[in-house]
């Protein structure tokens, strides 16, 4: 009898927690901070929260600093809602699939989302605790991109180096301080370095308070853009 009850309890716990501890990650909420020293010589700080649902492919940024702004990115549209509820729409290519959020949810962050694309591996080497893979671009992009070198440490994405077609390093990225949230591995710090002759420029993005498959912000994930059409005076 005791064994049966114990088995039932274990089975119930498995049924409840498997969606969290299993590989079915479909939603992520994260607080972010972006600190940037630009090539123009200015410093920029952006603080906010990001919400992403891969099933709806909707990405929402709630910006708190420098000023309250909401960005909603879905399909080829970016909607910008400022603190006075003025609405602006911009067209941009559908890029949510290649956001850090979607790549992490789909377990593609370790290869930077290049696996399965037209990029091809030309070299793999091991150096110390790094596994370094060189990816060559397809011919159609050879005019704009050179090779991309990706390094992994402990099977997690560690660094990315972009080269121009002229073999100059254009950007470096570093992914570190990984945290594990119910089985989802996510970097808490992404550092981007843009080299130049005089001075390197840095951009540091930090992620914290990462929540996976949370259900407390349905209004965010299910934001209906069609409701914006009904906005009264003040909407652009």
């Amino acid at each position, binding site marked *: 009898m005791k064994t049966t009850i114990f088995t039932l309890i274990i089975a119930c716990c498995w049924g409840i927690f498997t969606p969290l501890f299993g590989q079915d990650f479909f939603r992520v909420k994260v607080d972010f901070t972006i600190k940037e020293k630009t090539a123009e010589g200015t410093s920029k700080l952006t603080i906010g929260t990001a919400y992403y649902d891969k099933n709806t492919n909707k990405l929402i940024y709630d910006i708190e600093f420098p000023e309250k702004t909401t960005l909603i990115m879905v399909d080829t549209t970016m909607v910008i809602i400022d603190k006075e509820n003025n609405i602006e729409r911009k067209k941009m290519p559908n890029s949510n699939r290649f956001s850090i959020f979607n790549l992490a949810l789909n377990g593609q962050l370790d290869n930077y989302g290049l696996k399965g694309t*037209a990029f091809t591996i030309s070299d793999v080497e091991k150096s110390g605790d790094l596994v370094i893979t060189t990816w060559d671009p397809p011919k159609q992009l050879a005019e704009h991109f050179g090779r991309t070198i990706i390094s992994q440490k402990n099977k997690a994405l560690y660094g990315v180096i972009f080269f121009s077609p002229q073999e100059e390093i254009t950007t470096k990225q570093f992914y570190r301080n990984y945290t594990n949230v119910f089985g989802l591995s996510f970097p808490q710090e992404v550092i981007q370095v843009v080299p130049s002759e005089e001075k390197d420029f840095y951009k540091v993005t930090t992620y914290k308070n990462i929540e996976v498959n949370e259900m407390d912000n349905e209004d965010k994930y299910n934001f209906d853009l069609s409701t914006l059409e009904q906005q009264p005076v003040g909407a652009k």
Partner: protein
Amino acid sequence: MKKLFTFIMALFLTASAVQANNADLFQLDEQTLKVEMAELDQLEEYVTENNMQWEDFQGIDKINFDASASLMAADFSFDNMDWISFAWGLICCPVGFFVVAINDDKTKDEKTSYWIGVIAGVVLGGISSGISIAL
């Protein structure tokens, strides 16, 4: 035999140099990074603790939240946020996106090529305002 040995040694040394170079590419100057981010780290802490917006700083000549620091020592820019560049800056793998873009029959046109050229410059070249200029 001597020539063969020399050739093999040259090949080995070249391969070793390449391997060392690739690993060296992933070195990060932590000290410079710390110095570069110092003012922004302080601003972040101040803004977070005081729940401030940028407009709260207007008209204030000098803010001392640390005896050794001043906000006005750095040139902070919060005007005319380029939200598209901001969004692209958070795209993890822009190069992957471009592959999708060029393979998509619906977008195989001049506009796609234009976007690729512009975004490549912005994302990979660290130009923060390229897309807004392009638009």
